[in-house]
């Protein structure tokens, strides 16, 4: 939990952070690097999120995209889709904003230790997975083989291009990438097709592999089916889900999937936890 050396703050009171710098990936997506006050420590697990407050506009949840293995400012990769996110889009380095968190149950590196990890990221779903991917790369000794599958709609929507290139070049992780399709005005040498098509191609041992999946709602069902076809057991699949959230702390009710609160029990779930809940839409 964000703790300052001061007395305990109300959970709803953010600390003021500052945009250190911004990196633009696409028309809609940017990486926001946010520095926190010196006396504040963000002690997070990969897959956890923060509530980010833009005064005068509102608050919204965002996955922490930086890995806890890396010191320094916090990184959020954010797509401009609504009020808070568009307001962020028009902000600049140095601008103040509020941060509270980290919240939720992320990936548990200890539980995953020793496993081969298969990351399946669709679109902005790469943002939360990146934290765990970099964690695994930084501590590769703790895990088995690493594989990342990444798909986005078209080449122009690719996130973290330089980092993807490094992953692609890396010896420590297998990396596969696809775009749904390449419009005529863009160039793309890689493969075209939906992300599920990468799954049979990737080389992994279903017995020793755990899959970590995040993407748009429509993606889950197909990816899970495909993973099952490859022989992956249900409890070898972890999903990071998105829901509406107004508090991030298990109270406001918006993120509920049956008895589960995505903000405290998730956003990362082991597939069997949500498998039989039709409203989970997985």
């Amino acid at each position, binding site marked *: 939990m964000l703790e300052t050396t001061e007395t305990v703050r109300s959970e709803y009171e953010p600390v003021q952070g500052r945009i250190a710098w911004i990196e633009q990936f696409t028309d809609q997506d940017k990486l926001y690097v946010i520095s926190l006050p010196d006396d504040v420590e963000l002690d997070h697990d990969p897959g956890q999120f923060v509530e980010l407050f833009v005064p*005068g506009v509102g608050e919204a949840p965002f996955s922490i995209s930086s890995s806890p293995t890396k010191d320094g400012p916090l990184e959020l990769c954010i797509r401009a889709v609504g009020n808070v996110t*568009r*307001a962020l889009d028009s902000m600049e380095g140095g601008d103040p904003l509020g941060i509270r968190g980290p919240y939720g149950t992320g990936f548990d590196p200890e539980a995953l230790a020793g496993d081969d990890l298969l990351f399946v990221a669709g679109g902005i779903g790469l943002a939360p997975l990146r934290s765990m991917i970099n964690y695994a790369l930084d501590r590769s000794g703790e895990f088995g083989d690493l594989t990342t599958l990444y798909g986005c709609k078209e080449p122009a929507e690719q996130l973290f291009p330089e980092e993807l290139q490094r992953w692609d070049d890396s010896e420590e992780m297998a990396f596969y990438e696809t775009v749904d399709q390449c419009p005529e005005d863009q160039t793309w040498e890689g493969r075209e097709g939906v992300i599920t098509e990468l799954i049979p191609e990737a080389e992994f041992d279903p017995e020793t592999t755990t899959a970590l999946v995040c993407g748009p709602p429509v993606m889950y069902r197909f990816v899970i089916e495909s993973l099952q076809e490859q022989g992956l057991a249900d409890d070898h699949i972890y999903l990071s889900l998105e829901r509406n959230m107004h508090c991030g702390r298990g109270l406001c009710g918006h993120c509920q999937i049956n008895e589960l609160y995505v903000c405290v029990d998730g956003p990362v779930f082991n597939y069997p936890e949500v498998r039989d809940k039709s409203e989970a839409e997985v």
Partner: protein
Amino acid sequence: MTERPRVAFFDFTGCEGDQLQVVNLEERLFDLVEVVEVVSFREAMSEHSDDYEIAFIEGSVVTAHDEERLAGIRENADVVVALGSCAAFGGINAIRNDQDFETVTERVYGDDADMIEANPEARPIESVVEVDATIPGCPIDREEFVQVVTGLIRGVEPTLPNHPVCVECKLEENECAFHRDEICLGPVTRGGCGADCVGEGTHCWGCRGMVDTPSEDAYTAVLEEHGLDAEEIVEQYQLYWGWQRPERATQEEAQ
């Protein structure tokens, strides 16, 4: 949006109650002109300029001339806001939409009816131009207006509340009209007003328009349960929704 956006107010066919609500901000009107630059506002000033970013438009479209004028405003403005129910969805003006237009003009102008140029239907501005934001209400709520203006300055797209009036009515602990053997449009009317009319001792008249997805069948059943016949039910719907309801039905059919 610039730091202090240029703002213009325009009125079409309506009672100008929404602009009056802006004047009725009283002292806060002077705060308003600190945060926006009002370049046209007939109710309070004589300056006028065609250089503005936000246009607030009050009233319905009733004549061909209205349509032209509106198109011109749309061209000048970055953001067009429908101010009040007449602009937002036709409002009271559309009561006559289901009346035979010849009869309508004759009733009002008798033998001289043919001197009148007007469209057979009163329509909201969105039937002519694209609308970026809507502040419904007859009249608008002053606080809602302030939130929309301050929001636009911060780059916030105003979101229309999409819960029915009943929600706020419960929060205010009003006694439900149906418990008092009155009819109330609250269950299918867009909230955001604080269920004010119920609080003042009457019932919801539907002035903020319908919610996005009204449970019309369920609601009609409730009205029948309370003794209304089909004609009376339509009359309830017609008070403010003479344009909106048929339009919704057409859209739904198209889907």
